[in-house]
């Protein structure tokens, strides 16, 4: 998948919804855009500053998609190097922040696909700091009387197709149509995966009371695809 040729509009993007290029002229004060321009003009410190300003947001999406600190770090690094190299091609059709986000999502999804293609080499999920950890088992939690698992643990337990849909739609707030494009699946598939992922999370986190989950087993228990 092309990493950064297209620009994605997220709800925080100020690009015109009709697809016209409203961005650059409308965002003269966007500090990220100023930094990107400085980088293109040869300022050696500008891109590092741009990276730092966006680091947490990019890390969040990469880590939540991959649930492995090393993979997430590789994905963000690959994305940043790509953006660094191709900064001059930024067309201003979205915010710089959105552009970086999309490049990072693509890099993370590429790694997610590679993980899926080599299930035997999928690493043990890690904490954001890189420490290995076994995702909590909801049965253990129930046995210990805990009402809820941590959302991150529950996300880590989702099959990656469901997790990707939930992360991109519910956490990152991307429109379903754009997630469908990113994942290269029909819109209906994204909706279905997000709904199943959501239902699983809700069940594991205790949002669905015992005896009330799932109300529609034939749909929500289809599995990961």
């Amino acid at each position, binding site marked *: 998948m092309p990493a950064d040729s297209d620009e994605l509009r997220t709800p925080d993007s100020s690009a015109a919804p009709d697809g016209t290029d409203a961005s650059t002229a409308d965002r003269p004060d966007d500090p990220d855009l100023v930094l990107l321009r400085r980088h*293109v*003009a*040869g300022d050696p410190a500008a891109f590092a500053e741009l*990276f730092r300003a966006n*680091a*947490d947001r990019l890390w969040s999406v990469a880590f939540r998609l991959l649930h492995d*600190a090393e993979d997430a770090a590789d994905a963000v690094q690959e994305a940043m190097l790509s953006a*660094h190299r191709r900064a001059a091609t930024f067309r201003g059709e979205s915010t710089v922040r959105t552009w970086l986000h999309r490049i990072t999502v693509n890099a993370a999804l590429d790694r997610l696909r590679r993980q899926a293609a080599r299930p035997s080499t999928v690493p043990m999920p890690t904490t954001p700091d890189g420490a290995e950890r076994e995702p909590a088992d909801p049965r253990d939690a129930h046995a210990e009387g805990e009402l809820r698992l941590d959302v991150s643990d529950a996300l880590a337990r989702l099959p990656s197709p469901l997790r990707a849909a939930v992360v991109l739609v519910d956490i990152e707030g991307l429109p379903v149509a754009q997630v469908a494009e990113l994942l290269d699946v029909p819109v209906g598939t994204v909706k279905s995966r997000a709904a199943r992922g959501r239902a699983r999370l809700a069940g594991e986190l205790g*949002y669905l009371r015992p005896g009330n989950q799932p109300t529609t087993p034939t749909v929500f228990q289809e599995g990961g695809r």
Partner: protein
Amino acid sequence: MSKEEATGEPTPEAKRHPDGELLDAYADGERTPGSVDRHVRGCTACQRTVVGLRDMRVELARLAPISMPPDVARRIQDALMATPPPAPPTGGAGRAAQARRGAAGRRRRPVGLGAAALRPAQRDALLPRSSRSERLVLLAVCLLVVVTGGGLVVALQQHEPATGTSSDAAGSAAISVRADSAKSGPGAAAPLAESAASGPSGLPIPASAAPVQAVRVATSLDALEPAAVAQHARDLLAGRVPAAANVPLLAGPLAPAAEPWAGLATPALLACYQKLTDVARGPLLAVDEVTYRGRAAVLAVLDLPDAPNAGGGGSTAAADAPAPSAGAATAGPIPASRDLVQLTVIDLGCRADQLTAATLFEEKSTKAA
């Protein structure tokens, strides 16, 4: 679970629960067939599910960003610094940009396997030559530390061979020193801060007035650009920045309300300094309130662990690299020209849990050329 159990009291509409995705769409307020609404209205189980699914969406949307671990940020930053600049735009503007890059590119440093390390020769090339007197001042500070002894330590402790601490252990040493200072009571810190703040400014380091772990604190409000940071840091260390005080900033409770530098000693900023020292594994030497590209910011100068052998390349502050060998402690004071420091500019509103995002500039340099 049987349908009867799930529905509680079945109504005619509850003969069959709606498809899960329909229920999810209903929970999201999407348009769904009227039968879904009729069913949900009469089915307490589905009502609870709808509420649960809505709550799930809200919870997911409210998840806070995860802070990028400092070692990951450093690694990526090093990789970016090692990457050639982008291809210049075509035309005259491109040539102008190329020319600017040539001038600015002197600060770009090659990074190889020892990502953050700089060879001495490269480091020397980064900074203009400093005066001989500046080096002497630094050495004088080190000697004063030895003389004052008795548990009184300054942040430049790693230059003190008598302590027996490896310079690589400077970070942990500084932390233990902080503990000692705290034991000596907060009363020791406040008078010092007062005397230092009211003392003469703009002079070479008044070490005699700072017998405990002192951080040079200034509020120059100078406007910094990336190329000016290293020189400003050296001025700061050498006492050439006006109104600088020596304050035991991380040593324990402070009462800086009336001090001009009180804004640099907020709990949030102190936590940021602490995190910086933890990552750099070296003590904080100096902070200065500045503006960086128009933003209110703080320049923090941290001492980095050094390997005193002249082989070069051995010093590293890479967070994921083990400390250099313990044998590094055998040599005496490290010449300022090879003594690595980290220069970090953070936003004045920095919070420790968002340190990466609040970091506006970072590079490694030396205390002197």
